[in-house]
């Protein structure tokens, strides 16, 4: 009996000792591999891998610009928010329309906010090196700055040093806590945040010029966004400075003549394009679903581009006897548009700054380089242009339109900011197809340049004040 007792005691002690040792081992396990509560630097790196970060929904901004027109069939179709946006209508949103542009952009901002909230609490592990940590933070900040710069220009007025401190912009959400009901921050406040984030991001010795792929931002795209933000603010010195910084890192432009450049059908099509600094596309499903057709270039865009421009012939189907020119559809069911930050835009920012500062020859040189890569060889050879102090800015702005149409609202943003300059301000109109019958007019500086908030957004956050139409 005693032996039995002793043996039992021994067994128990051994078991408990083993248990204590085994505890750590037993509990030291990996989390589920298909959903990971992001906590570590490696998790944040994976969050930044998402191709959704590069897939945006800014097509409505292009629809509101003067770069496209609707066919008569499209204007008489069952009413939808694209059509109402095209006519700068009031309202744009039907009562229960979801504003995908708004919601999807904030859901991308949420991803970045989680990273910025948590990066400093990331546990020390093999991935948590100063290099990895600072890279994750820089890339998150650049992405977030991109989204806010888009949002503030979509829903807010163009930057104006005089009024932007009070002009309402968009709710500035910088931390990942949900269900807060922030009011709209001022346009100036949003710009300040965008610029501060970008400056913090590029001030990182580990940040390379380009990210590992088109989804990951590098230093060059940080500089490019700074240049874009300063240009919109009218700070041409700073814009020029950051444009130069960008071009010092990346300046290759793709020659549409020699390359097999085709219009985009999906994000990977951007891979291998050397001029892309940060890949962004807009895939619009509903426009095609509503219209069973793609958009038509506006007559002003067509006349600006001319058919010898490869930016026209490679993206539009040539008009035929039965059909006007239309944008090519991807896979027969959607439109895919390039919204990337690229070298050409930075060249154009630099050119605009130079032209405005009087260095028209330097500006002209940039335009010439770009046109050489964009026009057919014969058309470029035939081109006879004389750049002067007076006409260069005009050439630059025209080139900007040619290069950046259907580019996630860049043309609309340009219209808004140029309307503040007497020389460039203009009213734009919608007419019936091939007709002079005016359907709608958007006067320069009109409040209808701003995208209104959808009733569902305002219902969910009553602190958001609506843009007056």
């Amino acid at each position, binding site marked *: 009996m005693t032996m039995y007792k002793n043996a039992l005691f021994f067994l128990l002690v051994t078991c408990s000792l083993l248990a204590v040792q085994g505890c750590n081992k037993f509990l030291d396990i990996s989390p589920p591999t298909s959903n990971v509560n992001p906590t570590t630097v490696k998790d944040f790196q994976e969050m930044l*891998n998402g191709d959704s970060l590069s897939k945006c929904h800014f097509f409505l901004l292009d629809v509101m610009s003067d770069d496209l027109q609707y066919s008569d069939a499209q204007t008489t*179709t069952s009413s939808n928010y694209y059509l109402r946006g095209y006519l700068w209508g009031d309202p744009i949103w039907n009562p229960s329309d979801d504003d995908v542009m708004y919601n999807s952009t904030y859901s991308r901002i949420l991803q970045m906010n989680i990273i910025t909230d948590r990066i400093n609490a990331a546990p020390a592990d093999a991935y948590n090196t100063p290099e990895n940590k600072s890279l994750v933070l820089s890339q998150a900040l650049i992405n977030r700055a991109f989204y806010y710069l888009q949002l503030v220009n979509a829903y807010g007025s163009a930057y104006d040093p005089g009024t932007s401190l009070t002009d309402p912009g968009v709710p500035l959400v910088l931390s990942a806590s949900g269900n807060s009901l922030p009011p709209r921050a001022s346009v100036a406040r949003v710009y300040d945040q965008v610029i501060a984030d970008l400056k913090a991001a590029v001030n990182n010795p580990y940040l390379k010029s380009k990210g590992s792929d088109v989804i990951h931002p590098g230093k060059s795209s940080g500089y490019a966004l700074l240049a874009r933000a300063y240009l919109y603010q009218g700070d041409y010195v700073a814009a020029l400075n950051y444009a130069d910084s960008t071009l010092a890192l990346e300046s290759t432009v793709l020659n549409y003549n020699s390359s097999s450049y085709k219009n985009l059908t999906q994000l990977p099509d951007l891979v291998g394009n050397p001029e892309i600094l940060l890949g962004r596309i807009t895939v619009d499903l509903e426009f095609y679903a509503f*219209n069973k057709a793609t958009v038509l270039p506006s007559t002003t865009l067509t006349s600006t581009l001319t058919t010898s421009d490869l930016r026209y012939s490679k993206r539009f189907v040539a008009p035929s006897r039965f059909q006007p020119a239309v944008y090519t559809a991807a896979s027969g069911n959607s439109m895919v548009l390039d919204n990337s930050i690229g070298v050409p835009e930075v060249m154009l920012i630099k050119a605009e700054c130079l032209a405005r500062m009087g260095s028209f020859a330097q500006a002209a040189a940039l335009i010439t380089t770009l046109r050489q890569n964009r026009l057919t060889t014969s058309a470029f050879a035939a081109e006879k242009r004389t750049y002067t102090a007076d006409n260069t800015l005009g050439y630059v702005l025209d080139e900007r339109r040619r290069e950046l149409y259907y580019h996630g609202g860049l043309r609309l943003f340009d219209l808004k900011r140029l309307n503040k300059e007497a020389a460039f301000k203009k009213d734009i109109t919608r007419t019936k197809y091939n007709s002079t019958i005016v359907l709608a007019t958007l006067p320069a500086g009109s409040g209808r340049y701003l995208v209104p908030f959808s009733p569902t957004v305002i219902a969910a956050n009553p602190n958001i004040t609506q843009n007056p139409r």
Partner: protein
Amino acid sequence: MAKKLTLLITIAFSIVYTKSYSQITIHEKNVEIQKIFKSIEQQSKFTFLYDSKDIKDVPNITIDVDNASIQDALSQTFKGLSLTYKIIAQTILVKQEPKKPENLPPGPAQQKKGMLFIKGTVMDQNLLPLKDVMIKELKLGFKTLSNAMGDFTIQSGTSGTIVVSAPGFAKQTISYADTTFLEINLQKDGMESIDLSEVQIQRLNEIKANPTKFINMENRNYMNLAQVLQGTIPGLSLQIVNTSVKTVTSVDAYVYRDGNTPVLAFRRFSVEDFLAREGRVQGQKIIDLLLKGSNVPKAITDLYHINTITTVTNVLVPEIRGANNFGSNTSNMLVVIDGFPQDGFPANYPMTNVESIEVIKDPKELIKWGSRAAGGAILIRSKAAKAGRLDINYSANFYYAPAPAYNREKLKLANTATYLEYLNDPGLSLNNGATPFGVSPAKQLVSQKRLNQITQAQFQTQWDSLARLDNESQVNMLQQNSFTQNHGLTVSGGTKAYKFTGMANYITGQDNSLGSKKSEYTFGLNNNFSLLKNKLNIRWLVNFSDAKNKSGYTLSPTNLGIDPYQMLLDDRGNYVYDYTVLSADANKKIVGLGYKDYGVNLLQDARINDLSSRVINKQSNLNLSWQLLPGLSFATSFLYKHRNTNNRTLYAAESSYSRQLVDRYGQLSSKGVNFYVPYGDILQESDRIYEELNLRSALSYSKVFGKHSIGVTLGGGAAAVSSSSPANTALYGYNSSTKTSTPVYLPTYPSTNAAITNFYSLFAGASSTMYPNGLTQPLSGDTSVNRNLNGNLSLMYGFANRISVSGSYLNVLNPLYGQSAKYSTQKSYSGDVTGRIVKDWNSVLKDVLISVGTTGIKMPDLPAQYSNRRYLQTYFNNYTIWVNGATPTQQQGQSSKLIYQKLALALADSSLVINGAYNTQTNQGNLETNNTVNAKSNETRKLNYLSGGLDLFLRKKLLNFHLNYGRSPEGESQYNGSFNYNIARESYFKSNTINDLEVSALLQDISAYQGFSIMTATNIATGGSFSQATNSDFSQLPAASKIFELHGKIGLVDNKYSMDLRYYDQNSAGVSNNLSVLTDPSTGLSTQVSYSSITNRGIELFMNANLVKTNNFNYNITLNGALNRNIAKNVPITRFTATNSYTTVAREGYDVSNIWSTKWAGLNSEGDPQIYDKNGNITATIDSATIASSLFYQGVTKAPYTGGLIQEVRVKQFFARVALTFNLGYVMRYYLPYPGYDGENSSLIADRWRNPGDEQRTDVPKISSSGSNSYREFVTRYSSNGILPADNIRLQEVMLGFSLPNNYLKKYGLSYFVMTFQVQNLAYWAKNKYKIDPATISQDGRIGSPLAKIYSCNISVNF
């Protein structure tokens, strides 16, 4: 003579009250009594003991009993004979009637008064009733056994002694005087045999067992689970909730892109794969929401559909007290059979081998079963094997359900004529351009006409040919008749040391979806070992099943996918292709170049594609209790589950999926088409292994030496749940016989990762790149592992009833991802020292006790949870994480500690006990469970308060009252109490008609932290074994629950009539994250986490009348009814949006199924919709302000009044059952079309307003071009004219059955044979004017396929 009579009456009474449930059937004429004895012995466990001298002179007997109890059989046998008999254990002692009964105390008074009886109930320490307990009156020598409900009646004197004994329990001797009722609790003795350890019930203040929670199984073994539940449990209604609320077999999710391949279509995922894809939390949330079916956000209904198996049998869903939680899938209760939780509700589970069914409604008990049991739990225990006897049972069920007819008229769907007329209306904006992509044939024609691409004559010819076609009859080919059979064999037997029950089950058949097929084998073995002189008891359950399931094409009448003129087969029986995706002309063009046909045919795809799954389940459950040494015992419980799921989708080469995929990866070259994907079958196969291990062990030691007693329990446990699926690739050009496939070709220039262009480039304005390399990338596999370890310790010391010291400590360790610590710790502890300072002082103050003690709980520190999806991006070949939701963390290191000093006084001979305590509570961090943002704070809160309690035990403990006041660990005030009075058992209560009368009340308050402690405590061994509920997940706090209940029951004429009435008011409050809310504008997330509560209030009524009960004829009526309201509280305010979901959104103070609408005022003379505004004026101005102010409450969409009326008749060998169910007091949505959208397929569009005057006859407005999501659409579709009463009564079931008479049984060597025939869903009566069956109506008012009538036949045989 009088004495003789007395004795006979005594026996007769004893017989009545010692019901046993052996079923005895004897039909004999004029035979010797021995023959009857033998027959009874054969059919029961009883043996006869008699002296042959005594029965020598007994005349021959004629007897006729069917399925009678032993007592009935005996009384029939002994009727009129000069014999007496006594049942002792399992022996029936037969004697010559004594001349002078010596057992009766003599005295004329006694005889005048008649017999005295004591009734009583025997229960174990968990208050579970005990059957077959021997009750002996010592002085008078009467014996009896308790019945299944633990009840017994025994003849008694005015005072005496009763001895109660049962194997495995300590014998108990009870002295009684002047009492008519005894409530006896047996304690397990040292030599106990372990029984199936049900949930240990910790009762606050000795709350009585719910008297209705055990189902009386008497005469119900021919039924199935649904039938048994329906007629027995008050408040439990079995409802046809919808046509498809059953087991989820797969989920269809809208896939935009697969890697880089645009899919833009719904793709089917197995549940596991879906959960892996969406993230477990988010995925489950979506499934639960869709199953629940109400208030589902549009963002979810648009993108996800669930497929459920509507096995012919599973049309009923039990519901108890309606919804008590927003989030949980309320309509389902958890069914646990012999310790194994079941998936779904096994409505057809036969009762042949069931020992008991327990229905749990008490929230405190349900917490232990985790979230799956939020709607209640049903515990089913199989019959235990009997030593030395081999029992064999065979049962078979056959089900047949004809395919429901597809009838457009009944489904209110537009036929060809209506649809084409609408489509061709010039008012309908139809802009399809000239695109060959995604336009149906009819729309192509209309577009071509409008664009003047064809002449009016050309148009008309083609249009007329379309108009002549209608596919209604062909659509029926997409369904099949359902036929299922189920065979079960059970064998049980064994010796004293080893008993076993083996079960084998085989199910095979097909359901109504075309091409479906299933077969399943199940084997189970329940082993009971009683070894080492009963010192080692083991219960070991093993279960194995292998299920193969081929899912067929599920017809969705309202969403068929083809227009009514699109045929499936042509005149010659060839498949007709639908060229909507790519127009017929464009298809002709690509086919001419060498591409495969791009057309789709539903019937062809349904016939040739093979979507099958195979699930192999292995489960084992071992419970062991071992008396190692005197005082030292070891208990362990081990649960193992292994499930291997294989999902296989084989797209045949001829299927549209294969043809289209091959085409998309086909590049046009000068030599023809260069196909990168080999043409052939495509196989997508995935495996998933799920494994769960849960081991819990405890060692207990207890010893008494002298006046000291000590007890120590040391326990520990570990749980691991893992689920993994390896990465898999689709196989192209798959050959099923050789199991080989052909590789995908890859481009060579500039790299294998390069893009190709496909046939889209043939069409002007279209382009498309495809990356063949993406097809070679495996779909990401995944692994998830959840583990925890727990340890617990408890100590007890007592000294001579004077001092008792106890303490306990419980610790649970959970792995912690991404923190510096490897695991998080949560702990709870308690300690108490109680001294009795006054003992038996005088009759006024009996005892005085003082105690000091402490309790505490500490939460682990967990990071906030972001639900997300992590997946492989095939093109970029890396993983990414996408956050799609946020869940607040309620556990961030908070703690609550309590120190108390308590004084308890027992007064008036312990019939009044009062206690009071001074408490000091220290709370650290934010313990408010309604905190949805951040619980972390360093705030420390100290709270001093007085608590107290009062316990009254009056009228010999027949009237008890308890009330306690204290505070929850969160610091909230709490009252807990109970009251019960058993009037019928009172000595003063003498009634010949009322035999049962009891009233009780309950007040229960469980805070979230208390609930959490209950959950963790399931890991602690109690009573020598473990409770069965296994909780491996402690990540969320359970909802706090407050309940008030009033209950009364009455039984008349020996329970011939009985009635049970209950009022309840329950409030549960917790984090709910499934409320349909608007997209959060600061995060873009569409679900919002909120802290909400729901109040369940209602009445449950249960009436049973056993109108006739004779040996040959039995007629029983049961009426079961409930009124239930579920009121939402603290729900987030949803502001007005003109959406369907706004009309049903949860509103403060309203039922959770509330529905609102504008009041319809008909059309105006222009054909525009009008409503009544808030002032009651008709208006056609419909804007946000007008609508928002004029919405009004229309009622609820879930029936508040539910119930059933069940009639059961038995005539000799035949029995029948008719069940009617009713659902009253609710409304449903009736689908109203909104003309203006080209996909509208309601037949009501034919009635649309066209000319002035039409407004007199129709509510359907004229075609509008204001587009979707407009106010006009809102009022057209969601006004009061689309709300119909949904009240309905249905003839749920008619059953006929018979049992084989004894003489036949004998002939075939059987002991039991029952056969039943049933028809379900026979008929319904619906109040609405269209006679639509509300059970088939979907959330938006569309009508689904009619419920199939199910014909079934069941056979059960015992050998």
